[in-house]
């Protein structure tokens, strides 16, 4: 019952064709779905305006009926937005509103094994009824956003108040901000405003002021006007989608197995096992 070379190659060709066909499907799935209302909407957070009052946190808590026990400045399964404060070299506290960035190339969507994390329009939402709580989105998110509690629990994060948006309202954090540091609007319009603001900030003594989220991960749903470089706030300078190299990784793994066939080939090709003792398939059959 030896495996013939023809059988081997036929099977290989069949499997490769099947794998190729499946892989074709693959990398289209992470593309951003069409904006929910035809125009891409976004949040713009201006850290130069933020006074750290945490009203955005309060708005989020109320809207989502979350408990108030939380560690200040830290995202958690119940804290979907959190103001983090970092002192700069002059001792001035600079604020950053953390939350899900609703990435176009969202790692959570790409790695979610059940498709519970998915794009709804331009927003990334985790279906709580479908999430199995594997934690993969937590390992994959470049911003460390999704969190789970003790089992049984699902991955939790900001939903962009998608139900409110669908009914024509705006996200709770933007609504709660008393000074307009967090604004919701058409992304292209917010972008123009933000670019002008960054230019002004440079003139006002913030030479490192910059806009974050325009092109990162093919464009984020939450953009930041930062006074310092992203690393100062603990943001990744060049966030990458977790599955960016996944095909290369499958290939390197499989190629390694191919290379490791060599020791087997070399050591077994001249094998002089006295196979007379071996029970052959034919002998086993009646």
């Amino acid at each position, binding site marked *: *019952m*030896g*495996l013939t070379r023809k*059988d081997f190659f*036929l*099977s*290989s060709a069949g*499997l490769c064709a099947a794998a190729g066909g*499946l892989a074709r499907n*693959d*990398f289209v*799935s*992470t593309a951003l779905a069409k904006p929910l209302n035809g125009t891409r909407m976004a949040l713009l957070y201006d850290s130069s305006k933020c006074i750290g009052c945490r009203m955005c946190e309060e708005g989020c808590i109320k809207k989502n009926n979350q408990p108030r026990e939380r560690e200040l400045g830290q995202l958690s399964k119940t804290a979907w937005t959190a103001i983090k404060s970092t002192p700069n070299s002059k001792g001035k506290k600079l604020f950053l509103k953390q939350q899900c960035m609703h990435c176009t190339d969202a790692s959570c969507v*790409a*790695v*979610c*094994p*059940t498709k*519970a994390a998915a794009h709804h329009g331009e927003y990334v939402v985790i279906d709580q009824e*479908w*999430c*199995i*709580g*594997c*934690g*993969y989105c937590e*390992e994959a998110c*470049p911003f460390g956003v999704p969190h*789970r509690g003790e*089992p*049984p*629990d*699902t991955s939790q994060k900001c939903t962009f108040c998608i139900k409110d948006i669908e009914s024509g309202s705006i996200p709770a954090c933007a609504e709660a901000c008393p000074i307009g540091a967090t604004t919701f609007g058409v992304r292209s319009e917010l972008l123009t405003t933000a670019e002008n603001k960054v230019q002004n900030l440079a003139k006002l003594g913030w030479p490192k002021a910059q806009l974050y989220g325009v092109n990162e991960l093919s464009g984020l749903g939450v953009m930041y006007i930062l006074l310092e470089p992203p690393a100062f706030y603990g943001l990744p300078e060049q*966030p*990458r989608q*977790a*599955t960016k*190299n*996944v095909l290369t*990784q*499958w290939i*390197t*793994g*499989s*190629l*390694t*197995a191919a290379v*490791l*066939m060599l*020791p*087997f080939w070399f*050591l*077994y090709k001249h*094998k002089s*096992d006295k*196979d007379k003792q*071996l029970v052959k*398939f034919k002998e*086993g059959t*009646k």
Partner: protein
Amino acid sequence: MITWGFPVCIDLWLAGMAAGAYLAAFLAERFGKHTDHRLLHTALYIGIPSAMVGVIFLLADLSHPLRFWHLFVSVNFTSPMSVGSWLLVLWTTISMLIIFLWHMRNRIPIKQVILKRIMNYLYTAGFFVSVLLMSYTGVLLAASNQPLWASTVLLPPLFVTSAISTGAAVLIFVGMVSRMWKIYGETFRRMVQVVAVVIVIELVVLLVYFFWLSRSGIPGAYESMRQLITGELAAPFWLGVVLMAILLPFALYIANWGKKVGEHRLVVASSIASSACVILGGLVLRAVIIFGGQI
């Protein structure tokens, strides 16, 4: 924060070992021109329960284990966990089908020639699925944003190398303990040599992986690597991985390099001991990489 703990370590170790044992047995039979497939079937008797236990550990790690079936109503091809779950099912199905057909070969009303051909296709399909299953154990971690796992493309090669060494080692272990070596003496002698070569390659891959991490310039990559070499995980890394999984078994394998398995009791005992070291070392390797990536 530790998101993935010991259950994931055990799942990746067992799944890799099951696939590695299949691959080792398949190649030994293919290149050694064995025709009875007894080695391959032994690999399956080890691999099927291992893979199943691995799946149980994987499910135990879910926050909602009873929702596990959500994994199997769709496929997310970019998600290594989704693909890996399907690979595990596919591998187990093929393996069980092989065993079933083998045992029922005289009772199934199909011509023997056709049955042989079907089984040959299954053996080959099992080989390819094994390769992917071994790769999955590394790709699962590499497709993340943890610097230790994702900064290079060398984690899948490292885990594949470890899967093959542990898979071949578990075959040797079972072969020696069950006295299968009395029939397949030469096959096991060669298998011992294969493992000796593979663990050296594993060491080389590990060194290149560390070198690449240290030069990647990705924030956190170097610090994570230092956790393994001089930090909290240094003891399990040096004792469990470098010494137990690589150096000690290599020394034992080399000491018995040319000797026939049945030549001396010590050869059998040393093969059992060195294989046990490789198998357990494979678990420690996965544990230090998985925990190291999350500290």
